[in-house]
């Protein structure tokens, strides 16, 4: 699973940690360097990707609270889109609508033109939207491998009699499922603990396991909800690397994340929410120069010296 074109030194620690101090020009160069080292073939696709997911006038109200207010944006095939904003901006709500946890009050979400908002929850994963969770939600008593196999089950068709009678198809699917799950554990780098119970895994492994489980459903769109939460700097860099690797494998990724190092290190585009409204949408460099964004959130987060800006405005 290692990319032979990857630079030998890890593109993580050193490069990413200096991101915050880059100006736009350096940043663009850096992006190009990372892109060419990790995925030389991807750059053009990202530039002219077609729309995979369309969020269209999404409004969500919980009683008197408007969590999302007429939010629209697109996710292009093959890109990594960052969904950011201060706490309570509606990022996770947006995720929850995309994966069917909530129904929108109005507006719609279309995956390849098909509406997800009226679909049964378990169907959405078959349509191709998979997610991880901010607070890890693994099947704790199952092994790491089994957790991933549950993901592959979404693509399998064995019937009850098939399972009871142990028909050849059931066997084949089981075998394929386990093989695929094992390959995914290797892909995310935790294959050495495949037989351990999910709850017995170290925290970082659990986060990676969630990603493997989501990938097992063969998603068109992978939604990562704060994947770097609770990570050390080193772990964050390794995670960034993994996310890029996932995109380069052909997946489209939407990521909600507070950590700006991770966000700026991996995203191709940013959508910024504040109080349920979209306040910016564009290339990370444009977005972080956007005055509205700076006043709402980003300035405070990037410029560690003035965190009060974010606090005060939020």
């Amino acid at each position, binding site marked *: 699973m290692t990319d032979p074109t990857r630079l030998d030194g890890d593109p993580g620690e050193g490069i990413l940690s200096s991101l915050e101090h880059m100006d736009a020009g350096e940043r663009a160069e850096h992006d190009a360097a990372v892109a060419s080292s990790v995925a030389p073939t991807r750059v053009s696709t990202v530039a002219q990707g077609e729309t995979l997911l369309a969020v269209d006038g999404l409004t969500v109200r919980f009683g008197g609270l408007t969590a999302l207010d007429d939010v629209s944006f697109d996710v292009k095939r093959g890109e990594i889109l960052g969904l950011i904003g201060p706490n309570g901006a509606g990022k996770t709500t947006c995720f929850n609508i995309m994966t069917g946890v909530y129904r929108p009050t109005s507006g719609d979400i279309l995956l390849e033109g098909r509406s997800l908002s009226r679909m049964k929850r378990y169907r959405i994963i078959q349509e191709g939207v998979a997610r991880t969770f901010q607070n890890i*939600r*693994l*099947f*704790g008593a*199952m092994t790491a491998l089994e957790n991933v196999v*549950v993901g592959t*089950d*979404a693509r399998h068709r064995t019937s009850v009699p098939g399972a009871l009678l142990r028909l050849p198809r059931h066997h084949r699917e*089981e075998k394929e499922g386990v093989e695929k799950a094992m390959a995914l554990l290797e892909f995310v780098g935790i294959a050495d603990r495949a037989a351990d119970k999910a709850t017995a895994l170290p925290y970082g492994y659990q986060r990676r396991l969630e990603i493997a489980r989501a990938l097992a459903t063969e998603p068109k769109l992978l939604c990562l909800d704060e994947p770097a939460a609770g990570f050390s700097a080193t772990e964050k860099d390794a995670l960034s690397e993994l996310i890029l690797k996932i995109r380069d494998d052909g997946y489209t990724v939407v990521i909600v994340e507070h950590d700006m190092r991770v966000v700026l290190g991996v995203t191709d585009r940013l959508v910024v929410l504040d109080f349920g409204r979209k306040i910016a949408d564009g290339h990370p460099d444009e977005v972080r120069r956007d005055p509205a964004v700076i006043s709402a959130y980003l300035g405070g987060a990037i410029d560690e010296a003035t965190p009060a800006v974010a606090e005060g405005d939020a």
Partner: protein
Amino acid sequence: MPATPQAPDASGERVIASVLDPAVLTPLVVHAQPWINFDVGLLVDRFWANTINGLAYGSVYALIALGYTLVYGVLQLINFAHSEIFVIGVFATYLTFLGLGFQPGALPNLPIAAIILDLILAGVVAMVVAGLAAVGLERVAYRPLRRRNAPRLAFLITAIGASFAIQQVIRIWRGSNPEGTIRLLPPSPVFTIFGAPITNLQIIIILASLAMFVVADQFVNRSRLGRGIRAVAQDPATATLMGVNRERVIMITFAVGGILAGAAALFYLMTIPQGAVYNGGFLLGIKAFTAAVLGGIGNLRGALLGGLILGVAENYGQSLFGGDWRDVVAFVLLVLVLMFRPTGILGESLARSRA
């Protein structure tokens, strides 16, 4: 004193009690007059007979207990109507016997192979009927509540209501007297263990129950649908988001529980041929539920262990304290175990049971 599990009950009044009174009671009735005994000699004497007989009873408890435990694992619901699913299985078995031309009171004069075939046929009918009944119960009684997000108490009351409703419908249909005794396979000692005769029925029931348990266990732990069941048990919301169809999982869970109850019904009617009666599921259901809690509700292997322990323990208790103490021993045992291990012997739930 040969083990004669079907010795007619001395009193002849307490149908349920007689149904559950095992063979070992008979010799006691003669001399056990004080309100409680402490007959260690008898306990030692009958140790092996009690053990084997208890395992046979316990197997039936265990099969029913699996139904309670599976549904509890997936829905956190004690499906009190499960005992009536079992009774439906008993009647399905009985009516299949009648349909096959067996008559109450008459011992069939058929080659053993034909009898075994008939028993298997009756078992299959009972499993199908009970399985369908369980799925139907879920559709009619529980699914509408789920749709409306009813509080848990509503489910519990519905379960109790469904239990009584089914029971009374059976009473109206078949009357309140037990059906006649149809015995296809009379118990006959096959060999002895430390002097205790082991009957063909005991062997069949213990082995067949274990086989059914292994199949159920493999199904839950090794198949895709079983993985779905465990995923829903651990975290319904996440399981749904991972593409598990929760409604389908619930239906399959009820079906599996019903099928196992149907098998239990056949074994029960093989040991207790006069057992087909409308309220025959009540005490047995409570015992099976007790077994499930004893082993750790939601835990498949716990249900098996709980059933076997309960079956054996009540036999020991009966020898030690006297026949009337059988049920007391069973439930005191439950209370004691829960005092020291509130999650049951194996503890935890289907959610946490290891594959």
